[in-house]
């Protein structure tokens, strides 16, 4: 049953040093507030899983939280590189970060398989790609009915998944609406889960087939107003495309980055 906790307490309880963590949100609903809390609490040696690392993982990597990143597309969407990710991979700053990369299709299937409690996902993927030569977690199996060679990847089963959503009701049931990405899968695939929400309401007020994650499938819920900024929350506020563009200059330089994190994450506290 979901417990209502402060973001501080939720992160303190469920994100342990060395844990495998998936913070999901496909462009939409990226749990930035939670990411910042992880930075503030100086979590270390995390294996960070995420289809599209985006600025949130650039910040975590630059702040020294990550040991390994598992991803399928690591860029600043529509802008360019993730400079902190590149600096860590190419130059080892602030320390060396290991990467394991997939395609989107494989990661999406791996989240699906994780939610489905399976050890592997099977897909028609990686045909002719050289990714299998640099990722030993990509294997191939033969279909016992047709003989077709299909790709197999291990399912994603994080220690903790963190997602952001529009709202929860007082029983902890959570509505996710709009671009739902792999958020539900991330929560269901994980041993523990933290969901940050814009608000808590009496009634979710949904339609019959809405994407609702029941409270009993969630470990902790924390209110984090505007918790997805600079990404967005459908129905609440838009994406700050401007910040995504500004991030390029901030992240390009180590000192500028460190100063930004100090000022905007460390010195602000949870309710910044």
């Amino acid at each position, binding site marked *: 049953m979901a417990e209502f906790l402060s973001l501080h307490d939720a992160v303190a309880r469920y994100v342990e040093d060395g844990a495998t963590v998936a913070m999901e949100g*496909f*462009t*939409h609903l990226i749990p930035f507030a939670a990411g910042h809390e992880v930075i503030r609490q100086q979590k270390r040696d995390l294996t960070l899983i995420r*289809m*599209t690392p985006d600025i949130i993982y650039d910040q975590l990597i630059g702040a020294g939280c990550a040991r390994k990143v598992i*991803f*399928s*597309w*690591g*860029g600043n*969407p*529509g*802008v360019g*590189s*993730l400079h902190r*990710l*590149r600096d860590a*991979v*190419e130059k080892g700053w602030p320390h060396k970060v290991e990467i394991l*990369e*997939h*395609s*989107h*299709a*494989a990661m*999406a*299937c791996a*989240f*699906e398989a994780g939610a489905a409690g399976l050890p592997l996902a099977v*897909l*028609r*993927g*990686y*045909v*002719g*790609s*050289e*990714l299998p030569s*640099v990722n030993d977690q990509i294997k191939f199996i033969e279909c016992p009915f047709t003989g*077709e060679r299909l790709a197999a990847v291990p399912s994603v089963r994080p220690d903790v998944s963190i997602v952001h959503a529009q709202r929860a009701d007082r029983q902890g049931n959570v509505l996710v609406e*709009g*671009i*739902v*990405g*792999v958020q*539900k*899968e991330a929560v269901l695939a994980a041993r523990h889960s933290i969901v940050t929400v814009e608000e808590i309401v009496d009634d979710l007020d949904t339609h019959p087939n809405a*994407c609702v994650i029941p409270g009993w499938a969630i470990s902790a819920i924390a209110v984090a107003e505007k918790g997805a900024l600079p990404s*967005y929350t*459908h129905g609440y506020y*838009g*994406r*700050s*495309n*401007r910040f*995504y563009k500004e991030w390029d200059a901030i992240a390009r330089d180590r000192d500028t980055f460190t100063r930004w994190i100090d000022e905007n994450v460390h010195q602000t506290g949870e309710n910044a």
Partner: protein
Amino acid sequence: MSLEYTSSEMMTVTAARALENGSTCFVGIGLPSEAANLARLTHAPDVVLIYESGTLQTKPNVLPLSIGDGELAETALTTVAVPEMFRYWLQGGKIDVGFLGTAQIDKYCNLNTTLIGDYREPKVRLPGGGGAPEIATNAGEVFITLKHSRRAFVDRVDFVTTLGFGRDGKGRDNVPNIGKGPTRVITDLCVMKPDPETKELVVVSLHPGVTREEVMDATGWEVRFADQLEATPEPSENELTILRELKERTERAHAGQ
């Protein structure tokens, strides 16, 4: 009457024209998205645009900066989860055209969006595969659009993120349940298509005012030209107007955020 237009506009208009009305297109962000939406706003009102964020049959009024801008969901027929997008709609064989950009492309149309240099010691780390590896194999065919340069058009890509026709041009031979692969590459200089036999990319059409030499200079291998080299038709006034309005709307919208 001769219109003024840039080589980028020429590229976008040509790429847009490649897309048939009524086809279903899995759209990459950036240049492909610009071209696909121009197609939708001009000759192909019933083209179905699908983005990997799960937005099905979307009709954005401004171009998305990211693959998952709110605009895409708000104007979509419906939005599905990302696993469903890749499983039911792409792998399920519902996509006629995958429309991709790339950082590097080689003679056999293989795409590299992973890195420059060696994998373990990269000179430049690029974003990675994203949706491309499976778009390129599971879509009926693939269009590619990017700017022509020697940095981008290389003899052999540093890394095959996404299959064109393999290192030897035979990468799709005898592979079951695979799409046709790249059928055209649209750049700011020309249109290229794979040779039906060897699969080597061949220039089939030069954009107005572009010379063979310019294409050769911008291509990292000894590029061949089709025997019947065509001249790419110019953009129409209508296409340019609509493209420029689209880009203006987009800039206004993004500046405000």
